[in-house]
């Protein structure tokens, strides 16, 4: 088990996997849970999960699966090496060995299925480490970790990732506070986190301060603009909370017109933009909080953390791993 493990935390599950197995598919909001990882040449891991109200009989499910596979002429045997309570089957084909494993998380009421593909030699210790690492974060916690695609964000539990976009080296996540399963809490602030590789390309040669000013919506009025020193505890505008900046950062507090219905009630869209460059990663980060308010301040989210300074991926080391 030479490969170093990296954690991905997405919606209801988290898993550790070799860093050379990169995320290829991640489920969207309201979709059945799914993560797919692949290395340079093959799909390596497929993780699916769904909420169920009853306790499933995993043995019965596997027995049915096994008998169906045998009827179809597949070479299938029970998985005996998995860390309990994982159970599963091992399917051998001419070119690969595929491990199907299943586990019910009673606390979170989730049925999780994992499929691992071993195109060469099957690495049982690594397989067991990956399966044993699958966990479901405790919903009673105040904050939840979202970690994938190079971004690592901890935000309040009621915040859900409602949209994400991925361009060349640029990843953007949009979080909204949920008041129910499908209902958005419009009183709470909307959060956007953006991470950009090749900052000289995305910033178009501008200074961070000028680039950030260019990100404001048309017609926005700047309330305050300031530069934050490294590790400085700041109070952004007339707000109650504070930020701790990991690097020298630029911050703009601005206000723009709310839609007509909101304007009648004296509301405006107050937005806090914070951006910084992370030299060890060679990335630019942009955090944006928008809230509809009558005054000119934004409530910082309790427990919000955006982590940077993560190690730069070693592409050469991942060439022949796994």
């Amino acid at each position, binding site marked *: 088990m030479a490969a170093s493990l990296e954690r991905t935390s997405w919606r209801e599950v988290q898993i550790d996997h070799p860093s050379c197995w990169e995320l290829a598919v991640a489920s969207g909001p309201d979709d059945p849970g799914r993560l797919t990882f692949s290395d340079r040449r093959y799909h390596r891991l497929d993780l699916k999960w769904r909420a169920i109200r009853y306790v499933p009989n995993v043995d019965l499910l596997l027995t049915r699966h096994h008998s169906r596979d045998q009827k179809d002429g597949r070479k299938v045997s029970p998985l005996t090496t998995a860390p309990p309570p994982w159970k599963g089957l091992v399917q051998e084909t001419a070119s690969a060995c595929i491990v199907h494993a299943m586990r019910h998380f009673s606390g979170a009421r989730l049925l999780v299925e994992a499929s691992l593909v071993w195109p060469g030699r099957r690495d049982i210790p690594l397989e067991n480490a990956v399966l044993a690492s699958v966990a479901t974060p405790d919903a009673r916690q105040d904050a939840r970790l979202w970690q994938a695609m190079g971004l690592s964000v901890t935000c309040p539990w009621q915040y859900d990732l409602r949209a994400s976009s991925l361009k060349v*080296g640029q990843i953007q996540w949009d979080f909204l506070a949920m008041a129910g399963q499908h209902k958005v809490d419009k009183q709470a602030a909307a959060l956007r986190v953006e991470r950009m590789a090749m900052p000289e390309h995305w910033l178009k040669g501008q200074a961070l301060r000028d680039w950030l000013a260019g990100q404001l919506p048309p017609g926005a009025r700047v309330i305050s603009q300031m530069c934050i020193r490294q590790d400085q505890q700041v109070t952004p505008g007339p707000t109650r909370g504070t930020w701790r900046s990991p690097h020298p950062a630029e911050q703009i507090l601005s206000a723009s017109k709310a839609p007509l219905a909101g304007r009648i009630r004296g509301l405006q869209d107050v937005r806090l933009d914070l951006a910084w460059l992370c030299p060890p990663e060679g990335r630019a980060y942009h955090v944006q909080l928008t809230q509809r308010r009558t005054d000119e301040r934004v409530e910082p989210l309790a427990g919000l953390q955006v982590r940077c300074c993560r190690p730069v991926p070693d592409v050469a080391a991942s060439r022949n791993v796994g």
Partner: protein
Amino acid sequence: MTASTAGLRRPRSLSAEDFLRAVPFANRAMTIVPASDGGALASIPMNRPRWLVPPLSWMLPYSSQRRVRLDAVGCGVLGLCDGNRNIETIIEEFARANKLSFREAQLPTTQFLKQMTERGIIVVVGFPASAAGK
């Protein structure tokens, strides 16, 4: 050189392994004029279509060269297409230069190489693993 002139047949489907082993070659007939912003202007000579004869050629505008503007990032990738590096190596070098992971670098690089192939700037020559005795 194209796949047809080399007597090669286009495979029905290409595995990821075969694709990463393929080697892009820059068009030797192309001329590149560097720009001040780090980019460049590539000019690729084009054959006049056989049907473009007078009086049609008097009415239809025709240029003997296709010009493609490249930004600094594209120039860097094109510079790696020297016929000695395969696509996997090009992706690795692009990733290393820009502190990207392999997958982050793979998507833009392959898209760029596809566009450059469509414009006649490069040609990608594949070496299937089966043909290489693997």
